[in-house]
């Protein structure tokens, strides 16, 4: 070799020279096959885990049972029991030792933020968890509870952080079963107390920790924010209900997809208000865009509780005539990562977007930004006049690579900003099948970023496609921060509906930060319960605070809110009246409490571009009451059927004997014109749900204590 040193280098160079590119189709095929195997492996593992440990008693029993099952003489039993007790004692000590600071000691790292440390002794003195708002973050004893206004933000942080940092769990949970047992006695209590109303806090209890990262779950890794059902409120104590308008429909389409697959949707995926709002109702329409809302109110008998009534508030937004709608400056941000390749993802989106482009006007502008491993501009801002160019760009999109959502979002906003036009509606439409999964270094920054752009007048719409990986929670949150809407597209039809039919609604906001407040008259209403809107609650004082963000409503959209109310004279009051309750003095209130009003509706909104809100009000009185359910118009009856259906799917405890059969009966008689077939489809879904519930062998029940703490389970 030393004689001929050139030779070696030459050989290496010759060997290195060939570059052979692999075939992406084969790569996809290989990865698909591998993922299928992976799913099976995980399922197997989950089953094993479930079987492997049935409790301490079981272990002891196995220990004492001889193979021939004759038992062990008492003396021998003690021989076994003494070391066992010693072991338990050691474990107890270990549990104290492997406390939270053990993690810090051994790893030299701070306890990650998404793991809330709960030390057993402090847990026992935890006050009953009662978050100020149902959507509030989990109550963490060590940390001061952040100011309520920040709560929602914190939750997104947690969510984003969790994406950035893989959960600290399985390893630890295996290795520290002993530690978990050490805290063994208060284990059940721990779980109960550490998981307040909001089950974002759900997680494994590992030694002294509670891991609140959402456990991955198969099949399907969708994440849903899961707020508990709205509770029954007493008018005497809380006469006012305040919430943000919600025009999203993502929940209904997801539910539809699950039911069409023959499965009941996970209860947390059901947001009743979004199901109700999916359908169109013929509410009274407002006449001009300066007062963009008109309310249709009614009070009618409650289908699931004969002693209660439903108070129905239907709001219709001003329909901007198609000709006079402002120009649109739209940036499509397309996820083109490898997972978008199935027919119901990228190809479907491309198809729907092509017809969307057809429905636009010539002076609208479109650009396309893609993101996968890297983000790039697929189409620079192009006038819709050049349809062919746009369609060509669409057709050339292909899926491959991993996802880096944040970078893409930045590029998209930059593009929207560069072409910002005061006269236009400026909007980024993000289409994705999953989350921004390659990690977030600073979630605060991302959120701030979106909020900042919102201030500049750029809206954000999020379209979710596909199944198995959808991060519903993040989708919704980002849309809320970006003054936009989130929709789930389960089929080409739905994609066309959302993108095409609703061009005007989705494109032209007629009111921003729309909030609803209802004050009940204690003389007529004893108790009330808002159906749905769990994730949309606002505090009473938020209503008049223009800084508090709320829902945005587009042209012609309808929003429905339904309350279940218990009249003062009803036997059905769930909460006993107070013995020492002071009768209200009539002259104290603005209106005589014995008036014919049930409640007083207030809607606060900002006109687009304005930063101060306007208020509209309307009393809801006995004049709007329909006493006989048979006289109720089809729209209202249908909406209440959907409300019942949604609550059934959520395993609501408020429905008494009301079942899917009743939903079907109600819907059958309230189909109306149903020009788009949506109500007939609903009927099919209700039947599918009935069958699925029957097949499950039991009526829907709230999960019991023994259930593993997972976000939801697919049967």
């Amino acid at each position, binding site marked *: 070799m030393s004689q001929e040193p050139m030779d070696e280098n030459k050989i290496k160079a010759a060997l290195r*020279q060939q570059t052979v590119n692999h075939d992406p189709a084969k790569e996809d095929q290989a990865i698909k096959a591998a993922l299928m195997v992976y799913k099976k492996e995980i399922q197997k593992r989950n089953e094993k885990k479930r079987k492997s440990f049935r409790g301490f008693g079981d272990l002891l029993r196995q220990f004492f049972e001889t193979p021939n099952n004759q038992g062990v003489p008492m003396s021998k039993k003690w021989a076994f029991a003494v070391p066992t007790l010693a072991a338990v004692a050691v474990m107890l000590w270990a549990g104290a030792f492997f406390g939270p600071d053990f993690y810090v000691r051994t790893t030299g790292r701070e306890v990650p933020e998404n793991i809330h440390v709960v030390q057993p002794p402090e847990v026992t003195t935890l006050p009953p968890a009662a978050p100020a708002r149902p959507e509030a973050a989990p109550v963490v004893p060590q940390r001061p509870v952040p100011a309520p206004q920040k709560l929602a933000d914190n939750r997104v942080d947690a969510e984003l952080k969790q994406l950035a940092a893989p959960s600290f769990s399985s390893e630890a949970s295996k290795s520290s079963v002993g530690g978990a047992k050490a805290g063994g006695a208060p284990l059940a209590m721990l779980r109960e107390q550490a998981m307040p109303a909001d089950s974002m806090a759900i997680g494994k209890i590992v030694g002294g920790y509670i891991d609140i990262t959402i456990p991955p779950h198969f099949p399907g890794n969708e994440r849903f924010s899961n707020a508990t059902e709205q509770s029954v409120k007493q008018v005497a104590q809380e006469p006012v209900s305040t919430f943000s308008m919600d025009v999203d429909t993502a929940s209904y389409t997801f539910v539809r997809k699950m039911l069409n697959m023959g499965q009941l949707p996970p209860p947390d995926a059901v947001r009743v208000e979004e199901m109700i709002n999916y359908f169109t109702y013929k509410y009274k329409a407002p006449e001009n865009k300066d007062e963009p809302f008109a309310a249709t109110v009614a009070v009618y008998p409650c289908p699931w509780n004969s002693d209660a009534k439903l108070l129905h508030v239907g709001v219709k937004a001003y329909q901007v005539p198609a000709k006079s709608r402002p120009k649109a400056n739209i940036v499509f941000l397309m996820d083109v990562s490898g997972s978008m390749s199935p027919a119901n993802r990228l190809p479907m989106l491309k198809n729907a977007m092509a017809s969307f482009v057809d429905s636009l006007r010539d002076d609208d502008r479109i650009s396309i930004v893609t993101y996968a491993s890297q983000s790039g501009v697929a189409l620079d801002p192009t006038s819709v006049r050049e349809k062919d160019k746009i369609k060509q760009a669409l057709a050339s999109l292909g899926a491959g690579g991993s996802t880096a959502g944040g970078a893409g979002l930045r590029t998209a906003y930059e593009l929207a900003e560069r072409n910002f036009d005061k006269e236009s509606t400026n909007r980024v439409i993000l289409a994705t099948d999953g989350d921004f999964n390659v990690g977030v270094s600073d979630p605060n920054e991302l959120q701030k970023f979106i909020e900042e752009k919102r201030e500049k007048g750029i809206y954000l719409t999020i379209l979710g496609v596909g199944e198995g990986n959808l991060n519903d929670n993040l989708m919704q949150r980002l849309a809320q921060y970006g003054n936009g809407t989130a929709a789930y597209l389960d089929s080409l039809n739905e994609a066309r509906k959302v993108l095409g039919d609703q061009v005007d609604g989705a494109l032209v906001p007629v009111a921003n930060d729309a909030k609803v407040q209802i004050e009940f008259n204690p003389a007529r209403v004893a108790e009330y319960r808002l159906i749905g809107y769990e994730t949309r609650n606002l505090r009473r004082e938020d209503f008049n605070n223009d800084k508090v963000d709320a829902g945005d409503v587009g042209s012609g959209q309808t929003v429905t809110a339904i309350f279940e109310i218990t009249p003062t004279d009803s036997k059905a009051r769930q909460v006993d009246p107070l013995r020492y309750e002071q009768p209200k003095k009539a002259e104290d209130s603005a209106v005589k409490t014995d008036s014919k009003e049930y409640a007083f509706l207030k809607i606060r909104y900002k006109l687009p571009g304005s930063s101060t809100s306007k208020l509209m009000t309307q009393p809801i009185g006995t004049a709007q009451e329909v006493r006989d359910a048979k006289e109720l118009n089809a729209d209202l009856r249908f909406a209440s059927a959907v409300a019942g259906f949604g609550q059934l799917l959520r395993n609501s405890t408020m429905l008494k004997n009301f079942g899917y059969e009743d939903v079907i009966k109600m819907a059958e008689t309230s189909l109306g014109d149903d020009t788009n077939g949506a109500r007939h489809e609903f009927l099919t879904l209700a039947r599918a749900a009935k069958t699925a519930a029957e097949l499950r062998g039991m009526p829907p029940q709230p999960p019991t204590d023994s259930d593993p703490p997972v976000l939801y389970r697919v049967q």
Partner: protein
Amino acid sequence: MLIPATTAELVQAAQNGDERAVEILLRDFYPSLFNLALRLLAFNRAAAEDVAQETCIHIVKALVRYRGEASFKTWALRIAMNCARDYHRTNKKYALQEPLNENLSSAQNPAGEDLVFQRQIWREISVLPDKYREVCILLWAEGYTQAEAARILDCAEKTIEWRVQEIKKRLQKRLKGGRS
């Protein structure tokens, strides 16, 4: 801004059941797996694709057992190596008699002389005993370090060094012989 998760983070997520992480991991490493297989299987594209797929499946199955003792990449490549060996064993007909075909240097067309030399080298390598051939491909064709090769082949670094010497000796001898 978003930054890519590290391989270690992805692996951990994958072990915890995150399907998405698995996909990213596999997509990251597929080209390396394929390329190694391709060279081990004498540029038989179809065979290499089969082996790469087989490797992906083995990786997800073995993921639970991966404890982070080696870097994920060398761990994955070791699996690819074993899959390629298995493939050899079961498909003798793909034996490496004539490793050179159109696949070779289809991308960059070297000058005639270089091409002849390349073919010659590959032919020489293909007749080396497996243990030498593998080292040759890992170090020279794929450009891994000796330490990495040692981990992929599950042997000591010294062994690799020794084999390299042996390869050089043999090649020199044969190339000289060929020329004369």
